[in-house]
């Protein structure tokens, strides 16, 4: 621990390590004649306020920083709705192969048939897993997949001259991205309540479903970790009033080989490759959010997508792949074709698992969640009368432990080297703790988590102070978020003139 100006710091900022004249890498001498610079456009070299550090400074600094993080590689990470499963190491190696990492998106398609073939297969595999007719890999994240999907639904109606449809229905248990996405697209959000069982209130849905509705966004399984009991009836209601059904695929890890959204009747959906298909979360991205479409929605997919532009002359040969813009496309949602490096990782994962492996992934994800739910039933308020899918929500409070909140339980978990569950979501559950163990955790790890959770429930009554003051042995303790919002120090002072 260092002291600077009496503020204790874990690790200095890289700028605080800077000494004039140091540099962490050498660059080649200029091997061509030098040209004259346009003097009036030049920047004073001293004005480029970057740190000056040696290579070992850089390495130690960032290794130290890494050690202050909790990752899947360091411990259990039951963060609900985020699917923090193990990220296989081979995925990192395949994405870095030079034929993938060192190719350019504007190369002639003839030079990149391997990459296009990979994308073609992945489009088809995701379609097969989901029961959709086709997939565009372009969206950069789940939120962008959603955005694409809702734009597609809007355009579908407008193409048919139906411009009255300006509203979109979301359940009150939905992810915050759903209503935010609808607003971005310029649609009015209608929220429908959940019934006492955690399903969509069908009577409420019927009362708002009309000819002004673009469609409905539904997460399956829902954010309580439950498979909507009446999903087909809900889809019939929305289709019945001329609306389209969007599936938020954030929870697809429960469904591979278990049920296909396309078979259920969804028209559009997105995938989170960084959840279901084991690509790493990266401390908050990059993700990848491909969007899938039923037959009648195919022309609207964002693009370009990969297509076969020439069939092979004999069956042994690969076809010729190229870029194709879907004929009524909503357009391009990001530059180029998608987060290709993430697509390579997902492709690698599907290939390593195969169809039976993917089904077992979902089965074990559900098994693990139900096992924890069953073991926590007596000590926590959990809706145990129903089987959950890949996650479940517990209430982090008790009548006989006043003052203890879900946040306290979360912070106390950190003392045991366990990442907290998702807090305060979904909004419809009081003091929600959303727990998603994923399929890659062993029974020993699940048992340890249960034991820690039982101990915390006991401490909530016997020693609540230890919960309120937690965490105790993390690199920093509870941080003053109000101060951060008030001070707005978003940049190192000496650089930004603070």
């Amino acid at each position, binding site marked *: 621990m260092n002291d600077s100006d009496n503020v*204790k*710091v874990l690790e200095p900022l890289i*700028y605080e390590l800077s000494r004039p004249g140091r540099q962490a890498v050498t660059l*080649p001498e*200029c091997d*061509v004649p030098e040209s004259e610079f346009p003097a009036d456009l*030049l920047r004073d070299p001293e004005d480029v*306020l*970057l740190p*000056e550090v040696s290579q070992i400074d*850089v390495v130690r600094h*960032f290794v130290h920083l*890494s050690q202050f*993080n909790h990752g899947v590689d360091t411990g259990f990470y039951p963060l609900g709705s985020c699917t923090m499963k193990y990220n296989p190491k*081979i995925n990192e190696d395949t994405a870095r192969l*030079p*034929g993938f*990492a*060192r190719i*350019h*998106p504007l*190369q*002639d398609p003839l030079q990149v048939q*391997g*990459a296009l073939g990979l994308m073609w297969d992945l489009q088809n595999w995701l379609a*097969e897993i989901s029961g959709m007719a086709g997939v565009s890999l372009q969206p950069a994240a789940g*939120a962008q997949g959603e955005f694409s999907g809702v734009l597609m639904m809007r355009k579908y109606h407008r193409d048919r001259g139906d411009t009255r449809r300006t509203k979109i229905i979301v359940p009150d248990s939905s992810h*915050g*991205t759903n209503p*935010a996405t609808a*607003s971005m697209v310029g649609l009015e959000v209608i929220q429908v309540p959940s019934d006492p069982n955690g399903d969509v209130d069908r009577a409420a849905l019927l009362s708002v479903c009309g000819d002004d509705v673009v469609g409905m966004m539904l997460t399956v399984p829902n954010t309580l970790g439950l498979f909507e009991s009446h999903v087909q009836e809900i889809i019939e209601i929305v289709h019945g009033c001329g609306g389209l059904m969007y599936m938020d695929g954030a929870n697809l890890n429960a469904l591979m080989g*278990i*049920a296909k959204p396309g078979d259920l009747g969804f028209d559009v959906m997105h995938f989170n490759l960084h959840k279901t298909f084991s690509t*790493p*979360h*990266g*401390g908050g*991205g*990059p993700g990848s959010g491909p969007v899938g479409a039923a037959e009648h929605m195919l022309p609207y997919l964002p693009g370009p997508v990969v297509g076969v532009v020439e069939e092979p002359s004999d069956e042994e040969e690969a076809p010729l792949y190229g870029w194709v813009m879907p004929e009524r496309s909503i357009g*391009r949602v*990001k530059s*180029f074709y*998608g987060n*290709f490096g993430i697509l390579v990782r997902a492709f690698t994962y599907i290939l390593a*698992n195969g*169809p039976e492996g993917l*089904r077992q992934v979902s089965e074990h994800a*559900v*098994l693990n969640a139900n096992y924890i739910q069953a073991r926590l039933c007596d000590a926590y308020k959990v809706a145990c009368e129903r*089987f959950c899918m890949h996650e479940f929500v517990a209430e982090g409070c008790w009548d006989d432990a006043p003052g203890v909140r879900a946040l306290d339980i979360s912070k106390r978990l*950190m003392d045991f080297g366990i*990442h907290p569950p998702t807090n305060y979501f979904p909004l419809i559950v009081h003091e929600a703790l959303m727990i998603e163990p994923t399929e890659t955790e062993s029974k020993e790890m699940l048992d340890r988590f249960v034991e820690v959770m039982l101990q915390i429930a006991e401490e909530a009554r016997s020693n609540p102070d230890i919960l309120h003051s937690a*965490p105790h042995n993390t*690199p920093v303790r*509870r941080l*003053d978020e109000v101060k*951060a919002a008030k001070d*707005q120090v*978003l940049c*190192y002072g000496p650089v930004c003139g603070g």
Partner: protein
Amino acid sequence: MTYLPHTDADREAMLAAIGVEDAADLFEAIPEAVRFPALDLPGALAELETMTELQHLSKANISADDFAWFLGAGVYNHYIPSVVNHILLRGEFYTAYTPYQPEVSQGTLQAVFEYQTMIAALTGMEVSNASHYDGATSLAEAVVTALQVAKHKRRKVILSPGVHPQYREVVRTYMQGADLDITGDKDPTHTLDDLTARLDEQTALLVVQSPNFFGQIEDINGLADKAHAAGALLCVVADPIALGLFKPPGAYGADIVVGEGQPLGIPMSFGGPYLGFFATRKAYVRHIAGRLVGETVDVEGRRGYVLTLATREQHIRRERASSNICTNQGLMALAATVYLATMGKRGLRQVAELCYHKSHHAAQQIAALDGYSVDRSKPFFKEFVVKCPKPAAEINRYLVEEWGIVGGYDLGALDPARADEMLLCVTEVNTHEEIAALVVALSEVAS
């Protein structure tokens, strides 16, 4: 199975604890008619076989490992120091989620704070967010910010035709529900004067790119004053490497600076994942989308970092949020931070100077060839347009097949009338020998 740890005994014990005989019983809520569908996918491969298959696909592509590279147009073949990849491969960084729990995420949070500082410093702005998906979506978010600053009363955005064509496409995709007048870029001959002539009381934002898509440095001096006089904001799309050598948009009074962060230690990777940087004035901080990290202290007075000003964001505000964005490009922002720390104040300048000298040397040599001309009407940084004696597509095929060179971007892809022009890119990676080979090859294909 591949990544599943349970033994048969584990499964049985767990099923017994749940109170079911078979795991299939857990799925009774799913309509029977659609339950347990077959998946028509290739059978599972062992790790060794998986790697063999991926290597096979990788080798079917022409890569910068084996070819001399002169293709840019928004994605660049810059050198990535070894340190960058070694840090990115720290599992503590890449297997973590968004740092909602700051006590166990100080590594990610402090790195993002350093990133925000470096981007603010490079662009000459006061504040940077934690990044967007790529340069194109960063620009789309700049448009959203400008509309919010104008309280949605202004409905016009002026785009320079020099802005990357795909960025302009993405802006239009994002805004298709917004009933906005997006103008200025239809005529490729439009100058900055033509654009400023369009500024009026309806204009929320003027967007220019410098160096522009064709590599030229635009004269943005005075542009901000003109935009501000009309009550509009000025957004500049910048190249982060060029900012090591040329005056930053902040020095010219820009209100928002965005751009593609890929040149900062991120591989070309066939179009992504990349990094969109976004910097602005502190006055607009509540109108911007995406994550922000701020400094604070913990209960023991230790310095620490947290996500802040989250009341702008979707998980709090839902339909009233400034954007639906959840993630930034966390790991890519880390790559840029490590890259900029490794290069440092002097290294980034050296990279920029090498790009400048090598591209100008190449331009000079090519301009001297019979049948070729180079547009030198404005200063350029690392890219320049070459008019060729033959279609660029034909020349590029020859370069790849006969010389092992990936040539420039064929401008005929944008406009069929420009099929004999290409946009060549030269960076610090290109050697004197590669440039000499390109010049000889161009000379030979012309004859």
